[in-house]
């Protein structure tokens, strides 16, 4: 099973790499909607909430079909708001699936991320049920199919002593209580969605809930335009005394119904249980074996000055500041292993190189770069590509540009860049994933801040900035990265070779805050 999941992951990753490349080409990596799929679900939820509140004003449980028909007849608002509500409910499902596939492809499901994974599945399920109840509210031909099929499924379970399907055989009008319950579920479930979303992102620092404004407004605008220009009409009302003929089905919600109607409900439950079981088991199936599992970060207390930078930078809120117990004044960082995903970003935060996953701290990186220089011996006109192992730099070789791999560009300690430049290489090109594609959420943001904006552990001012270049390339964009490397190499040739120093001293000082956050959060 692990192997199967591994193959599925590789296929998904390859497929997404192609899609990313195409979308980056059209929309740039900043506005690539696939990178923002999780945030687009949040946008959808907000639009659904606002448009849903309007629709609720007109819905009547005593006359469900007629009241929705009345909405569809309102030329000025009801018709397009109803259409927008419907179209965006599909966007929510599709965007959530893309977001989930992305997390799956990147293996972001196990360990401390398992909570986000499992709650994500719960979100998707509740979202789905909410949409289902929404379609039943209309009480048209599709509602008839969905309600009858739902009843058929539940009637094989030993839950109800009487088949609920009898409510939909047409010998009695469907009771208003049913529409009341359905409406109640449709309105109450979003509260559940909000709660689960809160759990979903509870382990993340600085949750990124909304996409960039242009993408947000483009999405809302486009869906509104389609809703205005191509509103949904009304299907025939539900007629329980006739078999449903041709029905306008929402594929996102009803994709399985045509199949389900042809088989015994036990098969449908079996399929549901298999899909639910498999997706719920992904955190276990994707988790590497213990010997291969990246270990959590550790703090080397004798180096830690209590500067709090790692505490601020950790994207998973896995670091706390605690009072020192080694006889020195102040605070020291402490990693909570159960929250740490081993992204290594803290290793790049710490000027004194006192924190990071074992063998990936700043000190280890410096030792690695010395080995790298001994091994590769790049010349003064060569460019060294420091590449994130998840991105485009992994695998390909670039002429005259040896690759130094790092587990995440955000875990890169700037002293590595300094060391390379001062060792006399022509230039260092750091190839990261596009910012929103970072597997560790904030690696690229912190990398930029450290190199360009003086964020600890910053690239020291004595380093010639012309000899350091930051580039982004998604996994499928190796050719674009190669072009960047070539063009940078040409620039390096123009500016002349690098000058090496004999003895390179890296300073490990950092600023300790006057008022510690540890103090504030004590």
């Amino acid at each position, binding site marked *: 099973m692990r192997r199967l999941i591994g193959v599925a992951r590789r296929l998904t990753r390859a497929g997404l790499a192609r899609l990313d490349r195409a979308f980056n080409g059209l929309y740039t990596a900043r506005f690539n909607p696939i990178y923002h799929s999780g945030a687009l679900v949040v946008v959808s939820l907000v639009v659904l909430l606002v448009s849903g509140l309007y629709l609720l004003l007109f819905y009547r449980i005593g006359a469900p079909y007629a009241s929705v028909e009345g909405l569809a007849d309102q030329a000025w608002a009801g018709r397009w708001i109803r259409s927008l509500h419907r179209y965006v409910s599909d966007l929510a499902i599709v965007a959530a699936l893309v977001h989930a596939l992305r997390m799956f492809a990147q293996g972001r499901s196990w360990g401390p991320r398992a909570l986000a994974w499992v709650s994500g599945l719960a979100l998707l399920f509740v979202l789905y049920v909410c949409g289902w109840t929404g379609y039943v509210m209309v009480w048209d031909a599709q509602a008839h199919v969905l309600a009858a099929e739902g009843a058929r499924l539940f009637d094989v379970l030993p839950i109800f002593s009487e088949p609920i399907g009898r409510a939909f055989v047409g010998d009695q009008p469907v009771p208003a209580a049913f529409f009341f319950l359905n409406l109640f579920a449709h309105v109450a479930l979003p509260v559940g969605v909000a709660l689960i979303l809160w759990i979903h992102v509870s382990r993340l620092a600085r949750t990124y809930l909304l996409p960039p404004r242009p993408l947000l407004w483009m999405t809302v605008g486009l869906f509104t335009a389609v809703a205005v220009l191509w509103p949904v009409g009304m299907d025939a009302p539900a007629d329980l005394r006739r078999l449903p003929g041709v*029905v306008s089905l929402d594929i996102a919600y009803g994709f399985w119904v045509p199949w389900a109607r042809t088989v015994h409900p036990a098969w449908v439950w079996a399929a549901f249980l298999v899909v639910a079981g498999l997706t719920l088991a992904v955190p276990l199936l994707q988790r590497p074996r213990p010997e291969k599992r990246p270990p959590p970060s550790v703090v080397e207390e004798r180096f830690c000055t209590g500067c709090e930078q790692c505490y601020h930078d950790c994207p998973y809120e896995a670091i706390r500041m605690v009072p020192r117990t080694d006889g020195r004044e102040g605070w020291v960082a402490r990693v909570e292993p159960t929250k740490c995903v081993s992204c290594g970003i803290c290793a790049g935060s710490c000027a004194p190189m006192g924190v990071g996953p074992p063998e990936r701290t700043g000190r280890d990186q410096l030792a690695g770069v010395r080995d790298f220089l001994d091994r590769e011996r790049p010349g003064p006109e060569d460019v060294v590509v420091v590449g994130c192992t998840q991105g485009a730099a992994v695998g390909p070789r670039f002429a005259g540009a040896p690759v130094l791999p790092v587990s995440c560009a955000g875990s890169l300690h700037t002293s590595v860049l300094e060391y390379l430049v001062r060792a006399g290489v022509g230039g260092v090109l750091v190839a990261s994933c596009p910012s929103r594609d970072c597997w560790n959420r904030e690696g690229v943001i912190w990398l930029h801040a450290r190199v360009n904006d003086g964020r600890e552990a910053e690239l020291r001012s004595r380093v010639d900035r012309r000899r350091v270049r930051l580039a982004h390339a998604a996994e499928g964009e190796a050719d674009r990265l190669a072009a960047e490397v070539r063009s940078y190499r040409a620039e390096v040739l123009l500016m002349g070779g690098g000058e090496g120093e004999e003895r390179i001293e890296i300073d490990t000082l950092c600023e300790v805050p006057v008022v510690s956050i540890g103090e504030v959060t004590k």
Partner: protein
Amino acid sequence: MNTARVIGGSALAVLLTGALSWTSRVPVTFTEPDQALLRLSWRLTDAVLESCRPPSEEELAKLPVHMRDPRGCTGRGASFVLRVLVDGTEVALDTVRAPGARADRPLTVLRDLPLAPGSYDVDVAFTAILPEGARLSPGVPPEVVWSGPVRLRGRDVALVGLAPSGRALELRRPGTAP
């Protein structure tokens, strides 16, 4: 941003939004005009089988005062046999048991029998299984039946249900409102 990219990006965005909106109303044929249904749906309450064996004096004496019933009757939900003939051919023969852990919930029947459109002679019988010495609770008929012609057009559902009297089955004509 070059023009080709803007045009390509806008076109794809419009296309994707349009496609997604289309998926919210894809015409799907659920049943063909050459399909129809005979549906049986009813609910029988209080169909309890009573077996009575008057207890001896000693047996009675052992029971608490409030439980002393000289008739010695016990009740459990009755089981019925459902039999359906279409043009003389048996299309359903089932035993329907009272649901619930103590078999004390109302008996319900919900059965869909697909038929092609056309005219049929249908016989439906719902007959209690009465073990020796047992009798049905008063007021519950030991058998409810319906026989008659059924004409089905494409996608019609002919519904056989319990008549308001509760003592016979009846046909609600296809397409007629309750």
